[in-house]
């Protein structure tokens, strides 16, 4: 009973402006696992996550994520199954915290009743009517987490999820990851700080746009 891998890359190369941000990555991600990507600044962590999420095109090599071929398939189908937490906030700055989540709910056909618990869980209940533009760096991160909580995607791609979060926020995140992996989601996170969750996990080390170590 071997489930098919969630993602499989073979010598994947991604070029941006002619520069190989990924220079031949081969990897395999199993379902319901937590994978941490580490590596020096500029090693290609963000680029790898973007590739896995179908946000950037594959230039050479082969890759299949969630059954979608990265080179020839419809990456939009893939994106729909992915949750993304990037370096920057990811909302409509002029809408309030709550309105942003309502937008997501309607886009995903979820009931609005999911919103209030998600906000409470990430500690933004008191900021629900604040314009997103006014949030502090960490509050934006928390809003992004609330968005993911509402979405509950199959694949979670988290780019330095700890950045800007305070201790309570980090604890919340750890807890969340345990939850979602247990529920069958696949999580890939890049990190400079060691992840503190006790979840079993794999660590991939990137350097120069390639995987140089796996454990």
């Amino acid at each position, binding site marked *: 009973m071997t489930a098919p891998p969630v993602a499989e890359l073979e010598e994947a190369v991604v070029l941006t402006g002619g520069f190989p941000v990924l220079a031949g990555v081969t990897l395999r991600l199993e379902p319901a696992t937590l994978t941490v990507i580490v590596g020096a600044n500029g090693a290609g962590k963000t680029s790898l996550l973007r590739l896995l999420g179908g*946000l950037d095109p594959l230039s050479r090599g082969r890759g299949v994520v969630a059954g979608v071929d990265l080179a020839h398939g419809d990456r*939009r189908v893939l994106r*729909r199954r992915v949750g*993304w937490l990037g370096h920057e906030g990811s909302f409509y700055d*002029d809408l309030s915290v709550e309105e942003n989540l309502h937008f*997501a709910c*309607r*886009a995903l056909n979820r009931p609005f009743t999911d919103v209030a618990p998600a906000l409470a869980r990430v500690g933004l209940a008191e900021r629900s009517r604040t314009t997103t533009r006014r949030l502090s760096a960490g509050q934006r991160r928390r809003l992004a987490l609330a968005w993911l909580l509402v979405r509950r995607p199959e694949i979670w791609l988290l780019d330095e999820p700890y950045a800007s979060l305070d201790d309570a926020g980090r604890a919340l995140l750890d807890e969340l990851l345990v939850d979602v992996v247990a529920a069958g989601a696949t999580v890939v996170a890049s990190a400079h700080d060691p992840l503190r969750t006790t979840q079993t996990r794999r660590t991939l080390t990137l350097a120069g746009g390639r995987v140089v170590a796996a454990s």
Partner: protein
Amino acid sequence: MIATARLVAGKDLRIEWRSRVLLWQVVPFGVMALVLSGLALGPTRAGHSSAGPGLFYLVVLLVTLLAINRSQAIERTPGTRASVATLGLDPGGVFLGKALALAVELWVIGAVLLAGTVLFLHTALSGSLEAVPSLVLTLAALAAAGTLYGALTGEGAAPTTLLPVLALPGFAPLLIAGERSFSAALAGGSPWEWWVITLVALVAYLAVGVLLYGVLEES
């Protein structure tokens, strides 16, 4: 698709309502541009009323460009793209929604500008009112075309400056048709052949948009 269109249109209109960019910035700009183009042509009154429709549509065009920029800027804040992409909205619906919101905005601005034309450029009131249906149609076509061109200039370098280059040639026939039917309305004629052009353009842009918007959004 229709649900997505309504969702997106609602979101865009709400953001506009919040920020009041239209009301406080684009409308005064349009009025100002009308006054200035009146000035640019010199102060003879007769000249104005005959050039009225042309100037009106020139200003409409400028205002449309601003509104398109704004409509695209909403989607372009850093990071927004990635998150919204992962919502997997139907691209045809997104296109229709953004075009609809833009059309609604343009209709509002268009009404104000039409009043400005009557006031500052002395076009006849009754003729101007007869031009309303053609104006509604033209603005809808501009909104559809503009949404497409806006998405085309997408994330590239300096989208704000690229947009006019791409959009203006495409807008030219709409401008001509609008101007002609406005002139015809002022002269009391029936400008149906211009309506045909506008309608054909509107349908063509809507069709292309629904079919190809997804291709443009792939980043």
